[in-house]
């Protein structure tokens, strides 16, 4: 396992044979395709497929457990709101259970929305579980984004890493001054995070000078142009050859996303109305 800013990635993976841009395209596809899919069966299947994909890519699935509390919290929140403030469309079926009135359509819609959200979340998480920061930058550079922008992003990522490390030490220093986080009220905890800003900014400001001097010392210019007007070499880019299969996969993923969008918008595919699960649910609660 190899640590990155946002988690861990496997040391080896069949995915690494693909160009970073191809993998970025996967983020685009899996992160956005569910926007056009209402039917929960499809999103649930998508979630399952992504898990299989991650397994194939040698990602350590147990590492994804950190997202579990989030998924549970979101579920609880969404369903609580749906039950307390249901969408009372005319003709919608209701049923009673444990003394509460449930609106079947509203409930099912929430169920479908939840799975759409889970699919999009997992679609995003899969990218950060299989790509290092360097690969993301190479992918962006392959899109011909200006050097100044990609370098800014690169520095931001690096600074974020330093930030996190400083944050850890600052929290220890707070504890050494008698601050017991666990005994604080929520409001005070919020104020506490504001307090972290002081040392973090102090360190960042001091470091800014050092970083800019270090860059200058190695001939960096913000334009990415040489003294004679030529372009700076992009060496790391050459480490990632863009092959035919990458072209095919990028195009295929783009086409798939477009196809799903067209099917949904133009032909009404993937809607809740046609969902077999919905029919089953309504039958079970006595609806039409």
């Amino acid at each position, binding site marked *: 396992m190899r640590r990155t800013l946002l988690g861990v990635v496997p040391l080896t993976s069949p995915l690494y044979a693909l160009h970073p841009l191809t993998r970025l395209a996967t983020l685009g596809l899996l992160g956005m395709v569910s926007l056009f899919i209402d039917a929960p069966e499809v999103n649930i299947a998508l979630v399952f497929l992504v898990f299989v994909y991650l397994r194939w890519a040698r990602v350590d699935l147990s590492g994804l457990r950190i997202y579990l509390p989030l998924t549970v919290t979101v579920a609880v929140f969404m369903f609580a709101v749906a039950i307390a403030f249901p969408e009372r469309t005319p003709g919608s079926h209701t049923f009673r259970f444990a003394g509460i009135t449930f609106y079947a359509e509203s409930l099912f819609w929430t169920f479908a929305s939840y799975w759409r959200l889970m699919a999009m979340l997992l679609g995003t998480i899969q990218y950060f579980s299989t790509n290092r920061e360097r690969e993301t930058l190479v992918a962006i550079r392959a899109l011909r984004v200006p050097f100044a922008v990609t370098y800014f992003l690169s520095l931001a990522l690096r600074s974020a890493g330093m930030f996190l490390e400083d944050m850890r030490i600052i929290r220890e220093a707070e504890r050494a001054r008698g601050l017991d986080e666990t005994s604080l009220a929520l409001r005070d905890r919020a104020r506490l995070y504001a307090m972290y800003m002081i040392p973090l900014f102090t360190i960042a400001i001091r470091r800014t000078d050092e970083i*800019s001097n*270090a860059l200058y010392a190695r001939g960096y210019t913000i334009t990415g142009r*040489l003294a004679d007007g030529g372009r*700076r*070499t992009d060496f790391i880019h050459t480490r990632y050859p863009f092959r035919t299969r990458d072209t095919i996969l990028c195009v295929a993923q783009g086409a798939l996303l477009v196809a799903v969008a067209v099917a949904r918008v133009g032909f009404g595919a993937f809607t809740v109305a046609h969902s077999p699960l919905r029919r089953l649910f309504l039958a079970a609660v006595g609806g039409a």
Partner: protein
Amino acid sequence: MDAVAIRGLAWKYAGRSSFAIEEVDLTIPAGAFVGVVGPNEHGKTTLVSCIKGIIPHGFHGVWRGTVELFGEDVRALGSQRLAELSGFVFADPEAQFTSMTVEEELAFGLENLGLPVAEIERRLVWVSDLTGIGALWDKSPYEISGGQKQRVAIASALAMKPRLLILDEPTSMLDPLGKDAVFDLLASVKRETDMTVIVVEHNVEQVAPLADLMLLVHRGRVARAAPPELFFEDCDLLIESGVQPPQATLFLDRLKRQGRFPGKLSPRFEEDVAAVRDVLAGRARGGGTP
């Protein structure tokens, strides 16, 4: 041609009332290994920053005099030419590591120079062999220690094949193993290349044995400039000026003042041991003061 020729250099930071360095006249021959010592806030970093051109580029203030690097006036040079002529390694291993992997970090300066891909490859292999960091190429900054980061920083600077390499307190944030690794590396650089090297250090014990020339920067002036054998002649002056000579050298200095040691004061530990042995042997033979 001299690597560095400084005449009448003075610099005052904007907002300060006095000059950080003044009346500096200095010549450093090409290929020399120079150690710069002195108390904090007395001008060591200012001096080497002026040599590298970081001052006046990134700072506001008053500049007087001239600094020439291999015959070229530093103030007239752009960052690319300055990077070709001189490399700079800073004290903080974190702040100078700005990429996401070691390989990128090594290549960064070379990309800025616009070198062809094949040349960059060759240099990466060369510098990794020289500095022993070949196994670290794929690692991210979170995966390597401070000492390793500093070696990467030195390697990144070396890869650009500058004619002059300046290191500003390169080991101050490292543990003893890290310090040793950096000084071993500098010894290799001295042996295997003809680079001119300037090292600012508090660790006099480790820098003096490598130096051809030692500079004492005190109150903004170069108070003393001499080869090591002569530099430690007046240990009291050094101590008053806030520099701690190597303990063994200091001990020999005391013996010398008592007339029990006639030789030169070397900062090299092995030579100091041999010198003390000679004194003891002289005593053992009952020969009195040798």
